[in-house]
Each structure stands twice: as structure tokens, then as C-alpha cells.
């Protein structure tokens, strides 16, 4: 039996309802914890705010993607029709811009969507099949009906005993250590 080289990732409290975890998160925040994460089976309104997470870059990325797509779209069509090989197509003007709108639009949407999704995944650091929290046995229910609040070890205010006690104090049904194998 070799000694456990794994280091501590944090402690995790388990809650039964959105309401509980929400209040717990608020109190943790109040208690001055910085590195808090909440895990819930479905989005719980206000939870992100409660743990101090407000702004996300996804909308900005989407805008950029959209603009990029649209400009590429129209640019390409204009360049093809009017610059690189201008041809008389049924007497229509070289720059038949009304005819170029559909493709421009589609590419706008395409660009925006791709940026939105890829951006979201990237910002969420996904894919990330391995994560310490999965080491917690009960965490499996985080995707069914249980709500978890994790205070991470890197938090300056973190102290295993102290923090565990804190979590119990905010009515966590279970409190478990989160280990991270080396």
C-alpha cells in the first residue's frame, strides 16, 4: 500500500435543492471565499452571480464571428463577380449586390454561430474529460438531482478543517474532500 501522493483540490458540500446551494454560495462569498464553484444538474438562476461570476466574452466573440463571416461573404462575391473575372451574366451588372445578399447573410450567421459555440467550449475549457471533482463518488448525482458547492484549496482563506466546518454550517448534507491524483 503506497502512500497517497495526491494533493488536495478542495472540499465539496452537497445540497438537495437550488435554494439551499444558492444561499450557501451567498454565505461562502460573504465569508470571504474567492475560489468557489457550484455544480448543478441544471442552470440555477443567480448562482453564477452568487459566486461572483458576471461577465462572459461569448457575445463579443459571436459579434466578431458574425461580422467576419458577413464581410468575407460579400467580399468574396464582389471580388469574384466584379474584379477577378468580370463576366456579362445575362446583362446583369457586375456588382449585382442584391443577388449577393443571401450568401452574405448565410455566412454571417455561420460565422457567428461557430464563434458562439467554439467560444463557449473554449472559455469553459472543454473538452476536459478529466477533472478532480469527478473523483468524488457522490458527484455522479451532480448531473441528476444533487447540487454541489466546491471551495478550492488554492483559496487563500482555505483550511481543510475550517472550510469543511463552514460548509456543514451552511447545511450541506455531505461534505467531502476533493482529491487530485498526481
Amino acid at each position, binding site marked *: 500500500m503506497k502512500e497517497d501522493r495526491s494533493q488536495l483540490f478542495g472540499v465539496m458540500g452537497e445540497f438537495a435543492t437550488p435554494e439551499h446551494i444558492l444561499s450557501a454560495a451567498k454565505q461562502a462569498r460573504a465569508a470571504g471565499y474567492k475560489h468557489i464553484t457550484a455544480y448543478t444538474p441544471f442552470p440555477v438562476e443567480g448562482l453564477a452571480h452568487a459566486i461572483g461570476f458576471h461577465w462572459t466574452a461569448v457575445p463579443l466573440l459571436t459579434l466578431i464571428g458574425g461580422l467576419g463571416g458577413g464581410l468575407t461573404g460579400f467580399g468574396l462575391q464582389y471580388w469574384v463577380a466584379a474584379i477577378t473575372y468580370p463576366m456579362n451574366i445575362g446583362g446583369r451588372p457586375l456588382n449585382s449586390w442584391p443577388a449577393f445578399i443571401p450568401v452574405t447573410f448565410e455566412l454571417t450567421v455561420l460565422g457567428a454561430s461557430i464563434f458562439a459555440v467554439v467560444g463557449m467550449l473554449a472559455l469553459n475549457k472543454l473538452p476536459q474529460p*478529466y477533472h478532480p471533482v*469527478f*473523483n468524488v*463518488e*457522490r458527484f*455522479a448525482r451532480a448531473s441528476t438531482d444533487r447540487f454541489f458547492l466546491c471551495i478550492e484549496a488554492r483559496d487563500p482563506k482555505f483550511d481543510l478543517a475550517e472550510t469543511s466546518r463552514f460548509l456543514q454550517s451552511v447545511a450541506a448534507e455531505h461534505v467531502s474532500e476533493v482529491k487530485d491524483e498526481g
Partner: protein
Amino acid sequence: MAQIFHRSANFLARFSLLGAVVLGGLALTAVLVVARSPYITNERVSRNQPIQFSHKHHVGDEGIDCRYCHTSVESSAYAGIPPTRTCMNCHSVLFNNVGYLEPVRESYRTDQSIEWVKVHRLADYVYFNHSIHINKGIGCSSCHGSINQMPLVFQASPLTMSWCLDCHRNPQPNLRPRDQIFNMDWKAPADQEEAGKQLAAEYKLRTTTELTSCSTCHR
């Protein structure tokens, strides 16, 4: 619950996703590159001929005019491949018993054609006409390269449609005075820009739109 994946899975997952994207991109680029490579265009690929006929010797050293053999180049779409008789004009007297010319003599004797391997293969469907190019001031070497330095002839240009278009869009740089058409060593003079304009006017070149109309080359 137990951890399903090992820590390394994180790197693997991200790397493979990224890799897939990059690979896809590379594959596409590769296709486009190959399409322009000699593998497809046959550019600079020299062929073995039944007779080691050297243009370098005949044109470069002996200074025989292109038209001596390619008789119809000024009048027809086809420059024309010389009949055996043309070879025999000289070789019935010169080198008339060297071994490597036996195929020529045999052809002449037996009335069986010499089979040359085709070097310049135009793209499908294009109706190229030598005579009009010659008459409008495009010299042989503009497309065929310095034949006079080729012991074995190879295709000097890609002969892709976009290559044709380059010149049809802007012929000036390649226009020569009529007396330079068959000059293999012609180099564009310093004032080509000016000269080109003048020649274009002199040859009454058609407008770019006309020269790049589909039916100019395709029927």
C-alpha cells in the same frame, strides 16, 4: 464516482480536436497545390522520344528556323509535326548512315510513321490556334520556352487555364515585334511596358473582355 478518464485525456482531447481541424486544412491545401504541380500539369517533364531528336542541336546550333519543320504554324491552328520526308531532306545526305537515325530511314522506307511522344497536352476542350498567336506578336518561346536550349523538349509552361488567362488579360508584356516571333532568345526590352502598348495598338489586339470571353477558346 470514479474518474473515467486519465488526466492525460484532457490534453489528448484538445489536441486531437485541434489536430483534426489543422489536418483538414492541410489536406485541402495539398489538393490545390498538387493540381498546380508538374505531376498534373506535366510542366518541365521531358519525354523519351523514339529518336533522340535535339532541338538544341537543330535550332540552337544549326539555327534552323522553326517554320522549316512546323510549316503550318503561321497559317493553321496546328503548328504541324514534320513528315519523315522533311527529315530526309537533309539526312539523306547528312549522317545518312549513322545508327541512331535508322528509325527515320526505316520510316521513309517502309512508309510507316514515326511515333513521337506528345509533350504539350492542352487542357481538354480548349481550341488553341497557333496562327493567330503568331500573327498577333506572341513568340514561340513565350509559351514553349527556350526550345533552342532543350536537348529533349519539355513543356515549359503549366498550360493551365489561369495561365492562359494571365496573358489574355494582359498580353502587353509578351508582345514582340513581328521579326522577333521566332527568336528563341528574345528577352523583353527595358521599355517593354511602352513597346507593349504600341504593339498592342499596331496588332489591333482585341479588348480584354473579348479575349476572356468563354467562346474565344471554348466551343
